[in-house]
């Protein structure tokens, strides 16, 4: 590969978009070529520098000004004849032809009349959000490990871990009791425990898994305190 081949690919390489051998080919060239290395270091530093630019805060008075502008626009609206307003709303910039617009505009008005009774009784959103799904497909940035959002996201696992620890202890205790049971009781116990552990492993993290843990814990508790596997089985699960 020559420098001319590599330079156009540097951006893609640095952003992790070159796969497999294409990436290693670039890397191989960079090992041997100081000029391209410098170029790619520069670009990486630029990219990181841009990424590190401070997040800007919107000025605090901005919302009030926006509301004023919206209010002014509404007043201006009210002073236009209605057909003009409907047309304006459905102007070409909104990608709908005027003739079609007038028809749908009228329909919209009719819809509003019938929908009024329903919608006004609908819930009113509080001042805060509809939830946006939070999905870290990439590992959480290291800088935010101490942040509350990260901690909250980890809560289901933390709670499940507490259940897991209790279950482990109880397995030990139940095993002590198990020693004094008959062969068939022991087999029954082992099978049931295996089944419940399978349920735990296949449950979704969070409440389903915790529920599965609780079932196992109850079963083990009964086995450990009552010495009667058959009894523990028939009593059912929480």
């Amino acid at each position, binding site marked *: 590969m020559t420098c001319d081949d590599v330079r156009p690919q540097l951006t893609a390489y640095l952003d992790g978009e070159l796969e497999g051998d294409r990436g290693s080919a670039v890397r191989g060239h960079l090992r041997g070529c100081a000029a391209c290395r410098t170029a790619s270091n520069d670009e990486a530093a630029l990219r990181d520098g841009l990424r590190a630019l401070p997040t800007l805060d919107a000025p605090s008075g901005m919302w009030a000004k926006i509301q004023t502008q919206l209010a002014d626009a509404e007043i201006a609206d009210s002073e236009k004849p209605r057909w003009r307003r409907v047309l304006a709303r459905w102007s070409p910039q909104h990608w709908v032809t005027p003739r079609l617009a007038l028809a749908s505009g009228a329909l919209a*008005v009719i819809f*509003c009349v019938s929908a009024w009774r329903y919608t006004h009784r609908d819930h009113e959103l509080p001042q805060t*959000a509809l939830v946006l799904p939070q999905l870290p497909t990439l590992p959480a940035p290291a800088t935010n490990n101490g942040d509350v959002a990260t901690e909250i996201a980890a*809560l289901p696992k933390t*709670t499940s871990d507490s*259940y897991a620890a209790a279950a482990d202890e109880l397995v030990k205790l139940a095993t002590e009791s198990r020693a004094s049971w008959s062969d068939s009781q022991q087999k029954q116990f082992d099978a049931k425990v295996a089944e419940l552990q399978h349920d735990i492993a296949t449950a979704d993290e969070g409440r389903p898994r915790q529920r599965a843990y609780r079932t196992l*814990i109850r079963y083990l508790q009964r086995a450990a*305190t*009552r010495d009667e596997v058959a009894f523990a089985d028939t009593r059912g699960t929480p």
Partner: protein
Amino acid sequence: MKFVLLTLGLLAAPALAEPATKPATKPATKPATKGEIVERSRVEIQPAGHAFTNLTVDNPLGDVHVEGYDGNAVMIETHKHAPDDDTLDRLRVSLVPSADGSVRISTLVDSGKELKQVARSAVRIDLVIRAPRKARIDAATSAGKLSIENLDAGGELDSASGSISVKNVSGELLTHSVSGATSLVQVFGSVDAATLSSDVDLDSINGEKLVASANKGRIAGRRVMSRDIELTTTEGKIVLEAETALHGHLVVSSLHGDIDVHLRRHGAVNVRARGGKVDLGQPANLIEHTAGWTVATLGRSSDPMASIELMSKYGAVSLAVIQ
């Protein structure tokens, strides 16, 4: 569009039988102690069509209190605490009503600016909710307190370390906590309460079934009248004052904990007990020892018989019966 709606609204208003959704009060933002900002606000949701039957609340950021009342709306008061405005902005409460009569309320914190961290202890959202009595409650907190009161359709309550408190509730009730103290008072219906390392306190419970378990915690019960009772601990003491139901069952067992039962019996009872030390409070002529069990039958065997089993592997078992 807004203008058109407004006009229609004015025309339609006299025809409306019910008042419109109450506008939420403007959030009051006032500084609390130590440079903390507290914002309170209120929202009311009216059902569109069916009454609300299910309320799901998920709040890992603070307390949840739900109280039943005679009405159709769900009223939610949110209290947000944050150290500054930016963080306050990140605190969200989401409200999703569904056509089937359920409402889902949850809280979360938006992930914020990359470099600004906020400690969990610095933020809080508490929810105080009034709901129709007939709504079933499914609520979860993490470290926050979870309490429900005056409700008729039972529910499921889940916490990690937050305490759970139930008062005057009927219907089927499930509660679970890792280390939150659980207290159920005046519950009519089947109950299942489980904790890992905290105490369970039961007062005035009546219904078909009562199952309570604590791994490392105590169970205390007073005025318990359920038909089928099962109390289990691994390490904690169990103290119970109960009334037997005719043909009822009572099973109390522990690995290390002492068991102390005071029973008011209706009809006959058959008692089996096992433990490090067993005292059934009966004259010797009524007591038998069979296969390691101490057994006694009280009352006439022709009467409806309730069965009682008390077992503690390493602890003391004692029973006192009054008729």
